[in-house]
């Protein structure tokens, strides 16, 4: 990897994500149940749901405080509101069987009140996004960017290495005619 010959203080680089926002037990159960309905059936295999929840908590941790707090609340409301859905017969979403849970989610997504549908679309989007971040799911889709990136990066350096090194070095090189007042030296005005 080419890098600038700048003065470097040896230190570990912070690469970490913001800390995960831990869901409460209740919200966690609801999100897990939501994932089982919103994601493809394979989400139930292995420990995918658990790892999806881990991704979800990491994503939540990166969100602004308002969203971090309101998204779990929205899941709880979605869960409780299932009681008003006649086929649920008074049960919460997390307690519904697969068929009823799916039809409840479908009904809410198709709701005429656009705001409600948009909110649940957002929740669904966030959960399925986390599912498709799982490495084995990407692998199943045939999405393997790591080896591809490595190969084309090598190709680039082989084909253009000297030019790349020259341009990168120029970033730190003194400007022509420096010390200078910008690239277009002109009379200092006003002073």
């Amino acid at each position, binding site marked *: 990897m080419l890098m600038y010959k700048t003065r470097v203080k040896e230190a570990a680089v912070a690469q970490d994500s913001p800390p995960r926002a831990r869901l409460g037990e209740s919200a966690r159960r609801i999100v897990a149940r939501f994932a089982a309905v919103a994601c493809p059936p394979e989400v139930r295999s292995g420990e995918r749901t658990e790892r999806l929840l881990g991704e979800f908590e990491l994503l939540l941790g990166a969100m*602004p405080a308002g969203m971090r707090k309101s998204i779990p609340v929205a899941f709880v409301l979605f869960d409780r509101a299932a009681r008003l859905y006649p086929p649920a017969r008074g049960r919460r979403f997390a307690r519904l069987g697969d068929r009823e849970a799916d039809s409840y989610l479908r009904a809410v997504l198709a709701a005429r009140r656009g705001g409600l549908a948009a909110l649940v679309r957002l929740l669904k989007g966030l959960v399925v996004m986390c599912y498709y*971040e799982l490495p084995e799911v990407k692998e199943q889709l045939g999405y393997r960017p790591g080896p591809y990136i490595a190969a084309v990066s090598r190709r680039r350096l082989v084909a253009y290495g000297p030019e790349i090194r020259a341009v990168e070095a120029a970033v*730190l090189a003194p400007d022509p005619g420096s010390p200078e007042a910008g690239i277009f030296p002109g009379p200092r005005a006003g002073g």
Partner: protein
Amino acid sequence: MSTGPGIPAGMTRQSEVTGDLHIECAVAVVGSGAGGATMAAELAAAGMDVVMVEEGGYHPTETFTAEAGRALRTLYRDGGAGFALGKPPVLFSEGRCVGGSTVVNGGMSWRTPPEVLERWARDEDIAEISEREMEPYFAKVESRLSVGFQDPETIGRDAQLLKAGADARGWKIIPNLRNQLHCAGTNNCTNGCPTGAKRSMLVTSVPRALARGARVFADCRAERITGSGGAVTGVEGRFIRPGGRRGPRLTVRSAVVVAAGGAVQTPALLARSGLQSRSGQLGRNLTLHPNAKVIAFFEEEVTGWHGVHQAFQVREFMDEGILLTAVNLAPSLVALGMPAHGKELGDLMADYNHMVTAGCLIEDTGTGRVRNIPGLGPQVFYQITDKDAARVVRGVMLTAEVMFAAGARRVLLPFSGAPEVHNAAEARDLLARPVPKRSMELFTVHLMGTARMSENPARGVVDSFGAFHGVRGLFVADASLFPGPIGVNPMETILGLVTRNAQRLIQQRDQYGI
């Protein structure tokens, strides 16, 4: 050659700060994106003592991977989940890291269209902004950032299909100009370029500024600009500890402050600093180039993640304010907007390698605003106009049409509840019916105009060169400057304007004692 990930001299992160810091310098720059880093590098090259204050972290090239979720968490503000409130809401993303949005953008580098510059000069009486006057500044940034066309071996199949479709329709399509140094075509632009080929500020103007003595304080949120007697006196900020906890204070004393946090954060910072514009335009006049995307499915394997992020733009409909392109997205981001769940979602996503994600960018005519809401911070409000909604529908129809012309078997539309369409006629028939605004799924990464330039203080927040009307020593240097939308990717316009404005400030440095 690389010695492994390290911290360049002059860069300070929160983990290295144990107590409050007091700094004196000539110029404090808030933000290290296209505007902030360019301004800092120009001024530092002129011998000025420059300090950059950046809210995001320092993430060097070596740390970038293809994990979209990780990139959203580390390189973007709010995990990439910004919302402009309206019907429909518009999802937007901003970079928040050293290098700003240039670290996560697609690298499209287009000069401001001449007619836009003419309009700005005419409507806002902006000085020295003709195509001829801007030429040397654009030439300079293009040279610095290696702006050019892609090497042919990096053009992916999704881009080839877009071109094939446009050619079949007889539409004008052009190769993209990008700030790239022999881009490898990793298709990882939005997660941070893993080779450094994309000449973002992270690998150009930031190290250039550091090499000329500038200092960068990363992980530090600028809370307010301080002032006294009608002039700025510096910036006060707080380092951000992991988890968002407030860390030590940073107090910068400077004769000049440059606000370059982008069109959402800049007006918010100015407003919470108690700065007002006589024009009443601070935070207003927001335009955002709404985007809408379609997902087209092809019989052949496309493998859209092989090849450059965006290789071509269809320019046939620029007169209508519509630009079309194809942009590959990671599976998680495609799934985010899929109109399906459960097994149906799995079946759609199983064809990921047969998809082309294509979209339209709309030059909008309506405006929104940014407001500081107590307890919530800066909030964006934007209501798409009827005219722009009609443009979105037409743009989507044209995008579907170009995909079908390229051989797509079916296309998913970005309107909730819309069925998939199987040919161009079907798309035209469907979209001839009214499409409710609330059903539109809109996205943007181009936020502009919230501290617009005008020589008339009654109309603009800043003057022709980014100086805040009525506050000595305060400058704006980002897309907030734009008096209106530009219809093309805004990065080079920011770079060109800021390079020009930096030159002006250098010429006037004695006025500020810097």
